[in-house]
C-alpha cells in the first residue's frame, strides 16, 4: 500500500470557509412511559422503588419489565424494595452532555439494590470524587435521597442522588 488514499481533509479554518449548508432539526418527542415504567415513575413520586418479580426464576427486575427477558414469560407481581444498595461502579464526570467542562465535577455510578440482586440503576452519587479514584467507592452502601414530596413529578430525577448510608442506619 505505497500509494495515496482518496479524500480531501479540511483544516478547521478551511471548514469554516467551505460551502456548507446548516440545519438544526427541531424534532420534539413525547414518549408514553409504558406499562411497567409508568408504575415505576408513579412510585418514585411516592418516594418508593418498585420492581417486578418473575414467578419463574424469582428475579426482581429493576427497572421493572412486564416480561422477564431471561424466561420470556410475563413477570407476575409488583414488589417494593428498600431504596438501598451497593455501588458496583462509579466515575467522575468533568464534562457536560455537550462536552463543555463542568465547574464542579459530577459523580455517577450504578447502584445494585440490596433487595434485588443483579438489578441496578445508574444515577448521581453524592460522594467525594477521591473515593471513586481510590476505588473505595466500590461496594459502598448507599441510599436514595429524594426531592421534597411537593417537588416530585414522576421522574428518575425525583431521586436527587444516592449517598452513603450512615453508621447504624437502615
Amino acid at each position, binding site marked *: 500500500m505505497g500509494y495515496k488514499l482518496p479524500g480531501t481533509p*479540511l483544516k478547521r479554518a478551511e471548514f469554516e470557509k467551505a460551502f456548507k449548508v446548516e440545519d438544526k432539526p427541531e424534532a420534539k418527542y413525547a414518549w408514553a412511559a*409504558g406499562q411497567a415504567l409508568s408504575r415505576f415513575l408513579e412510585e418514585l413520586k411516592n418516594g418508593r422503588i418498585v420492581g417486578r418479580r418473575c414467578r419463574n426464576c424469582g428475579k426482581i427486575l429493576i427497572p421493572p419489565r412486564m416480561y422477564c427477558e431471561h424466561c420470556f414469560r410475563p413477570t407476575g407481581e409488583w414488589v417494593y424494595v428498600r431504596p438501598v444498595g451497593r455501588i458496583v461502579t462509579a*466515575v467522575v464526570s468533568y464534562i457536560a452532555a455537550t462536552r463543555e467542562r463542568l465547574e464542579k465535577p459530577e459523580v455517577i455510578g450504578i447502584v445494585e439494590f440490596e433487595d434485588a440482586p443483579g438489578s*441496578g440503576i445508574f*444515577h448521581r452519587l453524592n460522594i467525594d*470524587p477521591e473515593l471513586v479514584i481510590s476505588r473505595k467507592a466500590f461496594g459502598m452502601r448507599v441510599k436514595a435521597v429524594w426531592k421534597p414530596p411537593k417537588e416530585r413529578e414522576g421522574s428518575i430525577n425525583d431521586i436527587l442522588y444516592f449517598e452513603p448510608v450512615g453508621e447504624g442506619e437502615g
Partner: protein
Amino acid sequence: MKTNIYVKRRVAVVGAGLTLFRRRMLETPKELAWEAAKMALDWAGLELDDVDAVVIGSAPDAFDGVHMKGEYLADGSGGWGRPTMRVYVGGGTGVFTPIAGWWHVASGLFDVVLVVAEEKMSPAQPHPQFVFKHIWDPILERPLNPNLIWIFAMEMHRYMYKYNVRKEDIALVSVKNKRNALDHPAAQLAAKITVEDVLNSEVLVYPVQRLDISPVTDGAAALVMVSEKVARRITDSPVWVEGVGWALDSTQWTNRELAYPKYVEVAARMAYRMAGINNPRKEIDVAEVYDPFDYKELHHMEGLMLARKGEAPILTREGVTERDGDLPVNPSGGLLGVGNPIAAAGLMKVAEIFWQLRGEAGGRQVKKPAYTGLAQAWGDLMQAGTVIVMRAG
C-alpha cells in the same frame, strides 16, 4: 441456540478499498462511499457490471445527519438498480456488514457482492458526543442528561476494579496503536506518545482521559466478496471467510456484569466453531479487535478468549500484542490510531486482516507468518458483538 456450521459454499474476500480517515472531509458521504467502493473493485480487478448485489453499513442516521442513509448512500456504493440493503448494529456494524455480505454469497443467491461502509462524524455540531444522547433510554436515562462517555467510563472502571487493572497498563494500548498507525496511509492520529502523555491528558470522565479515546472521523471502506467459483477465476490469493458470529445482549446494561463482554464470547464461539478453531489463543495469528477506547481492546481480547479474564493487560505489558509479538493485536493502528468513522472503522479492520493475510500490509505486516486472522467490532449500549475469522488461501 443452534447454528449450522457446515455451510457448503465458501466465500472469499478479493479486494479492499479505503479513503483517508480524517475529521472534516470535503467529500459528501456518497463521494466517500464511491471512492472506497471503486478502489475495492479495482483491487479485485472487477467492474460494477460484475457486481450482483450490494450491502451497505452505516451507524445511526443522526451521525451523518441524513435520514435513510442506506438509500442515500446507494448510488455512491454501486447499489442503484440491483439488490441492495443496509445493515446496522451500532458500532458493531463495520464487521456485521461483511457478515451480511458473506451470507449473500454463502446462501448461493449471489456470486459477487460489494460491501461498503461509510460514516461522517464531523458534521454534528458542536461535537458528535451530544448526538449520542439519543442512544440512551428515553424514560429513565436521558433525563439524567448523560454524556456518552459516562457509560464507557462506568464499564472501564468496573473492569479495572474487578481484575485490579492499572491505568498505566491500559494506556499502553493507546501508545501501541497510535504508533502502529504511523505506517497506515489512512491514519488520522498516528503518533509516538508515551504512557505519561496518556496519563497527563485531559480527564474527561475519570477513568477516561482524552488519549484513551479514538477521535472524531469521517471516512469510508469497502470490500469485494465473491463465491469460490469467481475467486478461483480472478485471483491466486483469495482470503476465505471461515467463520462468522454475532450476538446481542440486553439494553438493560445496569443489570449486567460489565467487567466481561459475554455477548462477544457468544459471537466468537459461533465464529470459532464454524472455522474449526479450538484454541483461539494459539490458532489466531493476527487480530483486529475493536478499540474505540484503549480498555476496550483488552476487554474484547478477553471476550474473544484470546486472553483469560484479567490477562489481557499482562499480555500487553509483555509485548505479546505488538506487531512483532506472538499475538499481534491491531497492527493497523486501530480506531485509536487510524481513526473512528464508526461503521467504516470496523470494515477497515476486516480490510487490514485481508491485507495481512495476503502479505500486502507493507510496513504494518506482522512479523510472524499470518495464516488465520480475526476482526471484531462492538456497539450499541455495550451489547453488540460481531466477529469474522478469515484464512489465507
